[in-house]
């Protein structure tokens, strides 16, 4: 049997500076390897269908006999911003880190020289971009059901921008959640249903702490004729999202320095 020595087969390890684009691609590929389970894909598809399904139901019951723009705005606020975007971000934001924490493969990320903040950032980008792209499909599909291929008052394009904004913000929140708790999916679901779904509608003050309302604040200035002046402004929403992203990168990076993996043994 031949035993190759390291120097004979590979030479002395040759290190270069950290390549942020290359490491980001690797981190996203590893995330996709953990995210691409059939069950998760089915879950995302099911959530994606929600806005379209609701639009079809309301359309078939004659709800569109009123103002289709009001109808579309209501669907976007409740189904897209309040349900589809956070649920998809939850599934994509938590899946990779949670699975890696559970089975111990997180070790292969945290025993490298890649800066921890960059590991978190790359994972956040992965979840945010996928959420944004997938949710924008819902925006277009629901828009098509309600108003056809037109873009009245710029609503569809405004909400396309808003779901990308929401994708980044929600993905940040859920990426951080995945690093802080082993029950991130349950905690995230409770947050989406109660905080974003129920409480943000009931209590005015919570609008300033609701990503759903921040998404609406981003969309409204882009819609012709403006919108509801009450609640957070677009500037506030942008600053709030920047704070959420910064906190996620900082807290997540610190957590990855001393990851809570339990035993690395069996």
């Amino acid at each position, binding site marked *: 049997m031949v035993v190759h020595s390291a120097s004979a087969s590979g030479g002395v390890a040759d290190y270069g500076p950290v390549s942020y684009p290359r490491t980001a691609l690797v981190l996203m590929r590893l995330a996709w390897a953990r995210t691409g389970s059939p069950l998760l894909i089915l879950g995302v598809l099911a959530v994606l269908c929600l806005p379209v399904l609701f639009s079809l139901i309301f359309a078939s019951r004659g709800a569109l006999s009123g103002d289709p723009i009001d109808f579309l705005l209501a669907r976007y606020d409740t189904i897209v911003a309040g349900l589809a975007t956070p649920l998809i971000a939850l599934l994509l934001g938590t899946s990779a880190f949670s699975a890696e924490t559970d089975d111990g493969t997180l070790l292969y990320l945290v025993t490298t020289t890649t800066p921890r903040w960059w590991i978190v950032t790359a994972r956040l980008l992965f979840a945010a971009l996928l959420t944004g792209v997938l949710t924008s499909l819902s925006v277009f599909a629901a828009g098509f059901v309600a108003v056809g291929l037109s873009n009245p008052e710029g609503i569809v394009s405004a909400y396309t921008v808003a779901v990308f904004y929401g994708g980044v913000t929600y993905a940040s929140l859920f990426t951080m959640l995945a690093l802080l708790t082993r029950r991130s999916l349950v905690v995230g679901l409770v947050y989406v249903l109660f905080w974003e779904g129920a409480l943000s509608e009931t209590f005015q003050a919570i609008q300033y702490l609701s990503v759903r309302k921040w998404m609406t604040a981003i969309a409204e200035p882009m819609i012709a004729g403006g919108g509801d002046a009450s609640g957070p402004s677009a500037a506030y929403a942008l600053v709030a999202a920047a704070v959420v992203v910064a906190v996620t990168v900082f807290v997540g990076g610190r957590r990855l320095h001393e990851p809570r993996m339990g035993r*690395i043994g069996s």
Partner: protein
Amino acid sequence: MTAATSAMVPLAFDHVSHWYGDVVAVNDVSAVVEPGITGLLGPNGAGKTTLLQLAAGLMGPSGGTVRVFGETPVRNPEIFRQVALVPEREALPGMLSARAFVEARATLLGLRNPRAAATAALEMVEMDTVADRAVSGFSKGMRQRTKLAAALVQQPRLVLLDEPFNGLDPRQRLHMMQLLEARAAEGTAVLLSSHILEEIEGVASRILVMLAGRLAASGDHRTLRRMMTDRPHTVRIRASNVRALASQLVVEPAVSGVDMDGADALHVRTTDYTAFSRLLVRAAKRGDVTLFDVQPTDESLEHVFAYLVQR
């Protein structure tokens, strides 16, 4: 130890303790790991894995200091240019091929040519012929070797392995031993944990024995083997006439005590197990006693380690 000499030492624990809540996992351990192969021996729950995690800087010690080539490993990702950790758990990203996985590691480690480094590492562990298959279809032994390739891809100067021989067949085990010996011969420090003495005594030049978080003993395998063999033993014997046998045994110098266990068995304590095994047959013959069963009662690894701790 000066800073210069400290930087030469691959791994040093200085009065290191670590606890999880109320549970003490590592208790005041001081040891130095030099270039060559060092075994970390102990039963499950002894604190071996925690010690390896501390060495890799995955958590800071609750007390004491850990130094890797003179540096504190915790919150110091740069040490992974020199340090690799191979976990016990088998899980790998199942959708990836072995090559993609090892190459991913090489990229995250900042190697200039990840592909060449991955190819060399996979050849080293004899996985090059199956390197393009998805790891989800791999056997336990193939996963172990893929993990090892992922660890050796940056040619570390300190390799930490948690139960590396688990799941390997004898040929693969021999190959891994040869591989580790080749690395050690080039000056790499290898610290490998196991709960089986036979697994590491043939490959490790020095062994650290851990029990209940404490460093119970250390030395080369001959010293430890002697400690374990020469300890007091208790043997349960079933025989046709235990009273007659007891009267024969109690006068023997190698026997330190005899207790009756019902009508057909007795417990004998001996300080010299080898001598006892010879004299038992003679004593039975003298007393015209038939031996039905001779069973050591304290042969488990925990008993052996407990003895080493009490010494």
